[in-house]
């Protein structure tokens, strides 16, 4: 038993740590501790503050408040360098490796061994790199490049790289999102070895099963606060889910009486090898169909292929009773199936163009006769959409890049509302958006459905998915594994289904 006065065995202690972003308190006076040689899982929904808390630990912020103790000593983690010297190593979802250069160079970057002060000492480099690789059980020629090895292997290289700086605390953020089952098993073996060597591992994941397999203790966060810390034996998956979800805020989601009619989208056995397999589902007019799944379950890949943006290997898609003969986005669009991209910055908006030009960009065809484009509709359409979506902008001709994230997202939605879709596929329609913009976006989505459109909604924001959807299909590892009707929908049930723990 470790009592409060006995600090031996405590690797990390955070006391009253807070971090404020403009408008929100992302981490709210958190007390957190992790013991030497334990795997400590950190769980919570998106936006619960897990990542921000770990970024504080990584020295990403110089304006957090509260105190952090590493071992016995108080540490000021105001820069990544100071975090490193305090023995904190981070492994993010996106790997930090340079793909075209060798494993050895990646591992020893910044401290490559040299001969005569200038020449690269290749022998020493290979020797040091091999010994680092051995620590994670990786037997590869260190002179191979990252491009040549698998994702799993590069993940191990990443771990080896972090271990090279001899950390005492290792933070892993969703390390398994791109790994297969066996690869996860191998990763867990290495985690156990690290643990036996006395390294503390803080493990962030949404995968319940993995957490129950690997973790010694689990801490649950919600709305920037720590809800509880439990030994893994004390809790069950439903208990953890209950703590993550908390009291559902029902009044946030308007109760609506959907007017659902005939099938307008019928997808049959859609397959893209390696991404998703034999996916079949349908959606009706007036219905909001949610697609649930963990990161890497193939949701975005599936809808992008369905809309013709990415290839398919087999399967059929029927829109309003007509089968799409050609597989391309322009064909899908002609049938009224539109896709709102999950990333407004890279392929959603034209950031350097005005609000107006963005809003009308999808209806150029419709206002063209014999190649001549008529711009007469533009002002009225834009004014109407700005009012309808409550977009805050100095004028319709302001650059869309000058708008806040929430208003940019509304412009993106407005662009597709202008195009008058039959089926609107929304991929994370309110990601990174404040609560007011989110409510406005939800209202617009419900309006679209009430006007007889079919909405396919992908969202990692569970309250949103559960609150808006009339029906939810669940994807896992590229397969559609279940379907849940409105009366069975709750955050708990969807979360369990996403994890493949169906009752």
């Amino acid at each position, binding site marked *: 038993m470790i009592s409060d006065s006995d600090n031996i065995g405590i690797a990390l202690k955070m006391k009253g740590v807070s971090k404020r972003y403009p408008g929100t308190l992302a981490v709210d006076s958190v007390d957190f501790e992790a013991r030497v040689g334990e795997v400590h899982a950190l769980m919570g929904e998106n936006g619960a503050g897990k990542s921000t808390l770990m970024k504080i630990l990584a020295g990403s912020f110089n304006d957090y408040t509260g105190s952090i103790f590493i071992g016995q000593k108080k540490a000021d983690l105001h820069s990544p360098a100071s975090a490193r010297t305090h023995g904190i190593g981070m492994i993010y979802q996106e790997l930090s490796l340079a793909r075209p250069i060798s494993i050895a160079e990646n591992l020893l970057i910044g401290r490559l061994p040299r001969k005569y002060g200038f020449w690269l000492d290749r022998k020493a480099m290979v020797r040091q790199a091999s010994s680092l690789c051995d620590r994670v059980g990786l037997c590869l020629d260190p002179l191979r490049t990252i491009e040549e090895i698998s994702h799993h292997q590069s993940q191990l290289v990443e771990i080896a790289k972090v271990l090279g700086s001899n950390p005492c605390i290792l933070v892993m953020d969703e390390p398994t999102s791109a790994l297969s089952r066996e690869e996860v098993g191998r990763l867990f073996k290495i985690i156990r070895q690290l643990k036996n060597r006395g390294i503390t591992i803080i493990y962030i994941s949404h995968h319940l099963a993995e957490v129950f397999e690997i973790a010694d203790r689990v801490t649950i966060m919600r709305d920037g606060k720590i809800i509880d810390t439990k030994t893994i034996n004390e809790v069950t998956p439903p208990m953890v889910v209950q703590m993550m979800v908390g009291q559902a805020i029902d009044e946030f989601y308007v109760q609506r009486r959907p007017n659902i009619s005939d099938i307008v989208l019928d997808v049959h056995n859609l397959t893209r090898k390696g991404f998703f397999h034999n996916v079949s589902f349908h959606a009706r007019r007036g219905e909001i169909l949610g697609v649930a799944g963990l990161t890497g379950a193939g949701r975005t890949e599936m809808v992008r292929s369905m809309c013709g943006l990415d290839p398919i290997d087999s399967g059929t898609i029927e829109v309003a009773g007509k089968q799409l003969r050609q597989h391309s986005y322009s064909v899908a669009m002609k049938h009224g199936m539109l896709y709102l991209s999950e990333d407004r910055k890279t*392929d959603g908006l034209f*950031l350097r163009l005005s609000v107006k030009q963005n809003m009308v960009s999808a209806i150029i065809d419709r206002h063209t006769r014999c190649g001549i484009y008529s711009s007469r509709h533009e002002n009225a359409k834009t004014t109407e959409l700005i009012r309808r979506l409550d977009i805050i902008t100095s004028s319709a001709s302001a650059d869309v890049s000058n708008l806040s994230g929430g208003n940019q997202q509304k412009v993106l939605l407005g662009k597709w509302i202008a195009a008058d879709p039959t089926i609107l596929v929304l991929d994370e329609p309110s990601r990174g958006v404040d609560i007011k913009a989110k409510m406005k976006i939800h209202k617009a989505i419900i309006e679209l459905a009430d006007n007889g459109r079919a909405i396919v909604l992908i969202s990692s924001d569970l309250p949103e998915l559960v609150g808006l959807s009339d029906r939810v299909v669940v994807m896992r590892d590229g397969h559609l594994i279940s379907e849940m009707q409105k009366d069975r929908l709750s955050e708990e049930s969807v979360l369990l289904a996403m994890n493949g723990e169906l009752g």
Partner: protein
Amino acid sequence: MRPADKATSLSRLAAIYDSIGIYLVGLLLLIAGIFVSDEFLTPKNLMSILNAVSLLGIAAAGMAFVTYSGNMADLSIPSIMAFSGIISVAALPLGLAPALVLGVSAGMLIGAMNGFVVGRFNANPILWTLAVAFFMEGFMRFVWSNNQVYPDIEPGTAGAAFINIFRLSIGPVPLIVAVMVLMFVICHLVLTRTRFGIESKLAGSSKAAARTTGINVPRVVLMDFLAAAFFASIAGIFITSMNKLGVFYLGKGYDFKSVTAVVIGGMMLSGGRGNMPGVFGGVLVIGFLANIMTFIGINTFQQNIATGAIFIIVVGLHQYQLRKRGKDYA
């Protein structure tokens, strides 16, 4: 206040420059010209300035399509000019009209290849068109054994009519000046009033966003390179007619000069911004500058130094402005 509103004076200057600036510069040069020489502001001199820049103007109008659609520059424009001229001269025995059609078609064939490769396979436009220019120079020197191609200029032949094209006038206005102005008017209408023009702007602003908006980006890029090749071919026929011979080096220098005109005319190399009146202004400014420098007695090489320096300053200003507004390739 958002950061973008807090523009520094320099980036505000750049923003003003983008809207009307090039004509302001033109006006300043016009005033400067009056001080440099009494002959500057005569109709004769002004018309000769227009005449001198009309080849550049036609080529730059085409280049503008490529820049506007986010493909930076077509460096094969000089070789397209030379090639269309050579083919026209070679085809003169078939008659003037067939020769001109064949010449323009030959040039557009190169444009089609450029547009297809850049649009479909996302080739780097600068490197690809540079390679095409290199290839075409070798090809023309090989096929015509490094020789110049002369038309038969006996009076009454198609050849005589061909070398006359450059020398024709409509009243006091040389044909080539009229063609240039007409081209700019048409190009302006195409960019602002046609689906092709709007889609070029969208593709130029963000190819990825244009794709998810349902725009056939490869087709748009193909058409932009075709437009560039079309105008380069027209310019090629005029320059061949002017020189009374076709040869591989005729369009030399028009790649960089037309990019300069396009960029100082307010089109950004990153695409999607600017307009045709601006490019026309850019062409005029280059004409005024060259004329004034000739009056002062600055030789061609020094003029090249000046043009290069202006290009560097304008591109630098654009980059600075984009960085300030934080949206370069955002």
